[in-house]
């Protein structure tokens, strides 16, 4: 029984069957990659995990509880954090403030009115936030305005914001999209370290095979909304069906 159990999930947008009968099981403390050509339904599937979309059929169980019908913030409170394809951070705030928001969310839940205490007096949370920033080598950028950073830094900040909540499941939506090779390698190293040092499950959607084969313990190949194969990276590499899905049937 995996930490994330997806059963018979189907989703239709008008005439388009985006997902049809997806079955998937992500085991605890593994890195599970979901790959597939453009339009395979990877992002749609991910959106079904976090409450952005509600599938028409099937069920999504996280840690023994259904996530369907829950809002994104409730699902986050259950222990799922998500990194977006384009970094979603608080651009108007400083880096350290960006980190404080998830710290408060983790400690105080989805809503707690604290209008009198000052943020500056929350030394425990700030230490937490700074330790996390140190881990992603961003401590020196603590007081920078988040919007003014490079895309790579924004991505790292977003990842740090997710990790500081110590989620059980980290969802990554193409974390290296649009990155230079060096940045991509840094991200791989960072994710590898996270994987090795933390009690965390990672589900990753990725186009870059280099990333996928460096990190994933298991890979699901999605094509036209249905899982084609699920196997270990070594077996996936030479799988004829995968080649077919990626290169097209004409070949």
């Amino acid at each position, binding site marked *: 029984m995996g930490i994330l159990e997806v059963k018979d999930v189907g989703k239709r947008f008008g005439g388009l069957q985006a997902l049809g009968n997806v079955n998937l099981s992500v085991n605890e403390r593994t890195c599970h990659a979901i790959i597939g050509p453009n339009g395979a339904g990877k992002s749609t599937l991910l959106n079904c995990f*976090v409450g952005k979309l509600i599938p028409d059929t099937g069920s999504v169980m996280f840690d023994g509880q259904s996530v369907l019908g829950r*809002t*994104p*913030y409730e699902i*986050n*409170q259950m222990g799922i*954090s*998500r990194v*977006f394809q384009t970094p*979603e*951070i*608080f*651009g*108007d*705030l400083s880096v350290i*403030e960006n980190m*404080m*928001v*998830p710290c*408060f*969310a*983790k400690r*105080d*839940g*989805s*809503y*707690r*009115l*604290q*209008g*009198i*205490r*000052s*943020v*500056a*007096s*929350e030394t425990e949370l700030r230490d937490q936030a700074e330790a996390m920033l140190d881990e992603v080598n961003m401590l020196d950028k603590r007081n920078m305005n988040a919007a003014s950073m490079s895309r790579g830094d924004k991505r790292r900040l*977003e990842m740090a*914001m997710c990790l500081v*909540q110590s989620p059980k499941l980290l969802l990554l939506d193409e974390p290296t999209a649009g990155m230079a090779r060096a940045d991509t390698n840094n991200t791989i190293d960072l994710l590898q370290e996270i994987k090795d040092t933390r009690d965390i499950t990672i589900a990753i959607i990725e186009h870059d095979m280099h990333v996928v084969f460096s990190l994933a313990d298991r890979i699901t190949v999605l094509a036209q909304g249905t899982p084609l194969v699920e196997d270990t990276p070594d077996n996936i590499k030479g799988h004829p069906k995968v080649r077919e899905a990626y290169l097209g049937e004409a070949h």
Partner: protein
Amino acid sequence: MLGLNKPDTRLLLIVIALVAAAPILLNPFPEGSGLAQFNAGYPDLMQRFVIFGIFAIGFNILFGLTGYLSFGHAAFLGAGSYAGMWMMKLLSINVIPAIIFSTVIAGVISLLIGFISLRRSGIYFSILTLAFAQMAFSLAASVLTPITGGETGLQTNLNDPRIFPEFLGGGASIDGNIPKPSLFGIEMTASYQLPLAGWEFTFNWGYYICGIVMILAFYMAIRIFRSPFGLMLKAVKSNQQRMNYTGLNAKPYMLACFVISGMYAGLAGGLMAAMDPQVGAERMQWTASGEVVLMTILGGVGTLIGPVLGAGLIKYFENIFSKINDNLLHQWFAFLPDGIEDFLVTIIHPFIGKGWHLTLGLMFMAVIIFLPGGLVEGGKRIGRLVRKSKDTAPDGKTNPAE
């Protein structure tokens, strides 16, 4: 001090000092001098400065922190005024219950309006608040006449059934006059006149009570800005999607913010009624809502002191600048040859007196274009310039020596 960091404490102390010294600072010109009419140090106007300061501080908590632009805050101001009036009519002429009740009523109304309006964001939110405010205005002017006095408005009367006439020292006047709003027997209109050389300074009780309330309101605003709650509100403004996926429910934060902001408006309305016990529905009109938007933007959105400065500036223009008339201009330009004098007066005429809105509009445009951060940004730029010239000054001294 008081849970504030050093710069915030300094800012608070500056505000306290300014409020305390305003009757002197705003009266820089001696009585009888040609410029005496630019003195703003009379109780009526000073009260308006601080009351609209409170209004704008509250508006800025909503607009400055969350970016939600409400066009209906005058409704809360008006509701607060009516509530305060009724307290003074029914309970006691003491202003404390009036102020408390006006804040509470405005809070309840803003809870209702906020609950519905906050279903939408951006322009739709603004339109919803505007619609509610206009409804409130129409109701106050017509349907709710038994409560609001309709078009004539609401005043304190001699035969008001004050249940506790002597409550906390506020009794009906023995001489049969309509009692004036008071605090433990001290009437709001009571003043102490201090003639000093050519000047005459007026220290008014009502003003100082409003001033103290404004300082408290300002202090509360600082605490909110620096609190986790304030941080969440900034997060709402910055990226609601990220906030949602970070496990935070933006709705209750927004609603709490809207209610706090509405209560500030109600507090201002209550003080207005306490200073001048008559309310009309026009206090709720959309122009009044627009005015507080102008004040906040002019002073500096999202800054602590900006809204207060903006409120002061607009009220100064409304009350002082509007008094300049052609006769006065002729006096000023009397030293010029007649033709030029008349020409200048004709040119300036549209911008003064009743045309003060025109000047204000031009000033507003200038601020928006050149100082998007409002007066506060202007102050910061000047500060930076001063610091720069200070930094370079020692170099300038040493270079020639070499």
